[in-house]
Structure formats: structure tokens, C-alpha cells
């Protein structure tokens, strides 16, 4: 009896399924945590001659929601494809065979995406979205975008997506800047700036969405690599402005079992920008090297 009471009131991870995509949503694997949030821009304005019960309530600012997903990278780095102009739509159900979204959003734009991995951990990603469409418990009947996810759920297929996993032993880090040094960890951070434009009178009687959404290129990429030194000789500040450009650098994630490629992060031109050397009595000498690259349209 107590078990029934408990199970009736919990939404457990084994019943949750997350679908994402632009037009054809696919089920995600490896999601560790997700958060969806929105808030109305209601504000109270004190005015002259007003008592507390006569605050002026109105709205200031665009309606923008936000979402964040932390994932272990399995099979692919799914959200990397959304650094461009395509919006992301996400659909979350809380019953395995239910096609009613518990939580969803549409017209979400990726604004930051990071990938990291270190010794003794999985490669993980974090993706953050700004949502200019709608977010929350949206009526799925009104939304064609979510239709194929609903059809997929209705098909009864609960096998889940392919599951390939890279571990720290199956990651290639190829930088001209160093070769045999022991890479301890890496972190890649994509920052995507979006420009949402709203017009006067454009949203009258509508849901106040922007009439234009542009991506402000280039996308800035910050790469940080931590390595135990072997052959890397280090630089000095005066030299850091010269010979700081490296081509054809890449980080490749491979499946730990069959060595097939899961994700590749390639940089035609990447620039060394910072170095942080740290040493202490209990650890080997470690250098953290920071690079910057830009992705153009």
C-alpha cells in the first residue's frame, strides 16, 4: 500500500522521455538533467499619490523563456547542430507511452553550448536556450511541430536511441601546439549571440513574438585544454601575440567499444590566448592552455 501511494505521486526518470529537433523531433539519450523556466515581466510601479493598493501593474520586456540541458554525450553531440539559424523544439513526456507533453517549448534558440571531458569522467555537454515561442504545458494539438514525436510515442517504440559512449580513453585531441603531452581535460564553449527584433503593432492580439531572429556571426568558441607537461615548452607573454595561430586542430570523441566517431570539433584556425601554469607538492605540473576560434556563417 505505501508503495502505491509513493508511485502515484512521483514522476520518475524511467517514465520521462525527451524529444528535440527543428521539424522532425527525435528522442534524446544521455540527458542527465534539464530545466525549463519562464517568467512574465510583470512589474509594479510606484507612482506619485499612490498607496500600496494602487500600484501600477504592467509588463516590461519581451516574453522569453529559458531552458538548459545537461547531457552525457552518447551517439552524437545532438545540440551542436543548433548553433545556426534553426530553432529547437523540445517535447518532454512524463509517462512512457503518453503522447501528451508534460513540458515543451518551441522556437528555442541555442545561445550557449559547452562540451567537456576530463580523466575519470564521461564527456558531457550543457546547452542553454532562449525561447521566444512558447514554453510550458503547451497544448500539443495546436502544434504540428510536435506531431512526429507524438506519432513516434504512439507507435509504442520505447527501445530508445542508439547508445554509443565515449570515455576519456577514446578521445583524440589533435593540436599542433603540443603532441605527446598528457591531456587531462578539455572544455569547449560555444557562445551564440542572437538578435530578436520586435515591431510596434506587430504583435497586436498575438503572442508577442519577434518578427525577426538573426544570429550574429561569428560564433565565438573558447577552448581550454589542461595537460600535464611533457614536451610542451610553454610560452611567454611577449611571444603570445606571435605564432599563436594553429590550423587543423580538432578534438574527436569516439565510441569506447568500436572506435567509431561520435563527435568531431574541428577548428581551421584557432588562436592561443592564455596560459595558466600551476604546480603544487601533491600533483604534477599542469598547464591550462586557452584558445579562441570563430565560426563564420
Amino acid at each position: 500500500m505505501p508503495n502505491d501511494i509513493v508511485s502515484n505521486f512521483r514522476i520518475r526518470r524511467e517514465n520521462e522521455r525527451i524529444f528535440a529537433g527543428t521539424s522532425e523531433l527525435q528522442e534524446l539519450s544521455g540527458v542527465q538533467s534539464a530545466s525549463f523556466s519562464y517568467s512574465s515581466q510583470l512589474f509594479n510601479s510606484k507612482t506619485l499619490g499612490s498607496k500600496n493598493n494602487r500600484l501600477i501593474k504592467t509588463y516590461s520586456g519581451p516574453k522569453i523563456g529559458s531552458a538548459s540541458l545537461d547531457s552525457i554525450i552518447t551517439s552524437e553531440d545532438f545540440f551542436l547542430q543548433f548553433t545556426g539559424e534553426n530553432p529547437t523544439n523540445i517535447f518532454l513526456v512524463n509517462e512512457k507511452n503518453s503522447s501528451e507533453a508534460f513540458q515543451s517549448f518551441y522556437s528555442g534558440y541555442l545561445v550557449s553550448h559547452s562540451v567537456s571531458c576530463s580523466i575519470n569522467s564521461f564527456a558531457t555537454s550543457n546547452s542553454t536556450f532562449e525561447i521566444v515561442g512558447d514554453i510550458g504545458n503547451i497544448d500539443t494539438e495546436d502544434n504540428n511541430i510536435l506531431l512526429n514525436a507524438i506519432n513516434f510515442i504512439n507507435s509504442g517504440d520505447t527501445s530508445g536511441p542508439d547508445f554509443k559512449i565515449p570515455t576519456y580513453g577514446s578521445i583524440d585531441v589533435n593540436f599542433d601546439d603540443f603532441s605527446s603531452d598528457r591531456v587531462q581535460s578539455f572544455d569547449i564553449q560555444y557562445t551564440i549571440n542572437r538578435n530578436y527584433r520586435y515591431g510596434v503593432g506587430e504583435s497586436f492580439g498575438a503572442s508577442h513574438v519577434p518578427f525577426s531572429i538573426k544570429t550574429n556571426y561569428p560564433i565565438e568558441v573558447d577552448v581550454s585544454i589542461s595537460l600535464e607537461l611533457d614536451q610542451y615548452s610553454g610560452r611567454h607573454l611577449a611571444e603570445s601575440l606571435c605564432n599563436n595561430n594553429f590550423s587543423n586542430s580538432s578534438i574527436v570523441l569516439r565510441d569506447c567499444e568500436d572506435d567509431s566517431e561520435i563527435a568531431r570539433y574541428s577548428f581551421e584556425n584557432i588562436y592561443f590566448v592564455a596560459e595558466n601554469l600551476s604546480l603544487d607538492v601533491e600533483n604534477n605540473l599542469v598547464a591550462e592552455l586557452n584558445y579562441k576560434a570563430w565560426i563564420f556563417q
Partner: protein
Amino acid sequence: MPVYFDNIDLRVNETGLICDSISLSSSNQVSEAYQIGRVGNASFSINGPVTKELSASFFLNPRNDPIFEIVENYKNNLFREDFHGELIQLTNLSGEFFLDSLSFEITPNEPIKCSAAFSCYGELSGEIVDIASKNQIDYSIAHAWATKVNKGTRNNTILNLSYSVSFDWSPIYILGQKEPVNIHCNKMMEDIDFSILEYTGIEYSGGNFLSELIDNDYLEIYDFDIYCQSGDQHQAHYTRRFSISDPLIQSSSLNCPIDDFSITNIKIKQFF
């Protein structure tokens, strides 16, 4: 007696405004008087009457805004001889003021705020006192979400829009009397400033370009309420409508910022 902000009421023709700032200033027009053969200032010279100016910043209340009523009234009776000012009361201080200017700006996703300036050419009576607010404001807040620009067949997106109207008053003084015997309106001027994405320059001197941009143009500001899924709550019961199709172009400037569209800012002007 000190007066806390929650007891400062501004009423125009007995209707309260939703103000977030008010300024009332009075100044003497004093200048020095020097005299040849004498060291230092001989006296002061009074060059004119005491000027009293009141300005206020307030939320536009399309349901019940007294200042837009004044503008309409002035527009319709612009050149009459016997203009009277408007009764303005600041708590218990009151006087007859003439509207110098009114302006507002519509920015997407923001409530619409106005500012107005008045001049008083007569005496003020009463005083600022700390009494409970008398305002019974039947308020709603105009908002860009409840604003409609009728663009006819054109489809230019307006990014923001500001409107201002100003009046040039001419008080008539006679010798032996401190207050003007009459006040005329010399002219009224409307300025509309808006930004669009399509470039439109001035084609010829004095060109009325608006027909090229927007036709049958007017701006409507609706009583604002939360829009819910069913039914349009922006009903036209409380609407302010402004024509923006008649004036002549004053300037057109194209700006090309980084990480944004090229934006043409257009200023138009109309004299009455």
C-alpha cells in the same frame, strides 16, 4: 509640512494622472542693473513676470487621459481669441496652466510613458499639503502590445515610434497689469519620429513621402489588458487614435549598426 510621495496627486481638469515624476518650478526674470559712474550693482531689474512651469512624466491611460483631451480641444479651436488654461491641482496647490508640449514613445514590449509640460502665466493658489490622495484613477496602462499601426496595403515594420505635440503661446501684457490680458496660440506643431527597416529617402524638396511608405495611416493605442488565448481583450472601447499620414518629411537617416539591420529613422513634422 513635508509631504511623502504617496500623497502627491496631480490632477488635470479634475482627472488624476499616473505620474512617476513631477516638477514645478517658478523663476523670476531678474537681471542686474549697473550704472556709469558707480561701483557695483545699482539695482536689480525685473524683465518680466514670474514664470511657472510644471512638467510631469506619466503612464498613458487610454481609458481616461485628460491631456490628450486638451490636445484635441486645442487642435479644434486653435486660433480662437479667448483661450483659457487648464485647471491643474498639485495636492491643494492649483492654477491655470497652458499645455506647452506632450510627448510619448512606443517601444516594443514596453508600457507607454508620456511627458507633458505646462506654463502658468497667472497666480497659483493654495499650497502643497500632506493630505490623503484624492485621485480616483480609473486606470489602465497603454502598452506596445496593445498598439496597432494601420499600414494599409504597405507592410513596413515600425520598430519604434515617438510622437510629440507642442504649442507656442503668446501672452499679451499691458502696462499696469502683472498678468496677461489674453493668451494666443501662435502655432501648434506635431513631430513624429519612427524607425523602419526599408530605406526611404527624400525624393524632392517638400516631399510628402508618407504615401510611399504607409497609406491610410493612423496609430491606435488600446486599453491594455492581458491577452489570453480566447478572445481579443484589446477592445476598442478606450482607444486613442493619431493620424500619422499628413505631415511632411523633415529628415530621413539611414543607420547601419553592427549586428543589426540597417534602420531608417524618419522624422516628420506638421504645423497647424
